[in-house]
């Protein structure tokens, strides 16, 4: 192991803020949903929608380790990683297995959010902002998806936490610290360079996602 004197920046601030905000908002959405606090539930949902859409954009426009093209490997790449990884050599960003875990997490959370936008409760009283574009029956189907995929998300999140625990505890490989600070120590002889990101891209993403989220909140009914 390196002495920790030499560190490399592996996560840009957007990836980190996305990660920890998503956890917080997922908790708020869960809690408010269980307690029928639907106004708060909708607000948490809008924020999650904005975060996930921004993360998708950042997967194409963000820093090196934020990009899907960098961390989504084919089956061969995943198998090779599983055969050769020693638990000590750090990956540059998500490892080939963790990358797919990220993709699945994003997919389930996006599905829950989209279903929630159209969902209608059993009394026809509470609903997502786009529910008036669909029938009551379709809204109920959306609500069922919202619930079912939420349960699937809990399973995927559980797996995600177990995997981190495996690296953190069994491999003494700190994954949580870098997700907070953005930095990890360099491996022996490692030449990985700091991640860089474009402020212009970030601003463009924030503006675009803000406009889209606002449109969704108003149900795409302007004026």
């Amino acid at each position, binding site marked *: 192991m390196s002495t920790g004197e030499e560190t490399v920046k592996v996560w840009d601030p957007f990836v980190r803020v996305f990660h920890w905000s998503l956890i917080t908002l997922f908790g708020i959405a869960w809690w408010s949903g269980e307690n029928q606090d639907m106004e708060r539930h909708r607000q948490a949902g809008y924020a999650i929608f904005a975060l996930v859409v921004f993360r998708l954009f950042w997967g194409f426009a963000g820093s090196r380790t934020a990009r899907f093209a960098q961390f989504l490997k084919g089956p061969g790449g995943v198998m090779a990683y599983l055969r050769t990884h020693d638990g000590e050599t750090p990956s540059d960003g998500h490892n080939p297995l963790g990358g797919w875990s990220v993709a699945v997490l994003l997919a389930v959370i996006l599905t829950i959010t989209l279903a929630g936008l159209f969902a*209608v409760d*059993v*009394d*026809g*009283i509470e*609903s997502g902002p786009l*529910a*008036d574009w669909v*029938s*009551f*029956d379709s*809204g*109920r189907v959306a*609500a*069922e998806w919202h*619930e079912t995929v939420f349960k699937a998300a809990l399973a995927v999140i559980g797996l995600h936490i177990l995997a981190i625990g495996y690296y953190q505890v069994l491999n003494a490989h700190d994954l949580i610290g870098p997700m907070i600070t953005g930095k990890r120590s360099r491996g022996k002889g490692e030449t990985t360079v700091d991640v860089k990101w474009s402020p212009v891209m970030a601003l463009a993403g924030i503006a675009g996602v803000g406009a889209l989220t606002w449109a969704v909140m108003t149900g795409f*009914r302007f004026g």
Partner: protein
Amino acid sequence: MTRARPMLLTAALAALLAGGAIAAAASPADTIAARQANFKKMGGAMKALKEELAGGADKAKLLAAARTLAATAKLQGGLFPAGTGPSSGVKTDALPAIWAQKPAFDAAAAKLVTEADKLAGIAGSGNAAAVLAQFKAVGGACAACHKQFRAED
């Protein structure tokens, strides 16, 4: 003419029997399907009311939805005969408490009819604030009964 009366009686009796047979033939599955269809109709009416109240508040649309709601609400109390709970083996969110606490359930069903009738009475009035308040009273009747007598999603 003297033979007409027994014939009429026979016919009436036959009609009664046939009616009884039809009623008896309504299996738990049919009854459950009928009441679920009605609940969906009421949910759709509530959704329509909510959207009108949030947007155009079109009097004719409000009135139509409120009348559908009130007419359908009246049918629901009779669609919970004994043997149509979860023990029937048919998938239903109706809790056994409906039959264990029948008077409370009947009161909740009657409450919905009362509130829905009130809503239908004012839905065409053009007084959006009053319609909204009564819409919420109906929603309260839905929610109170669901909380006590319907399985959670």
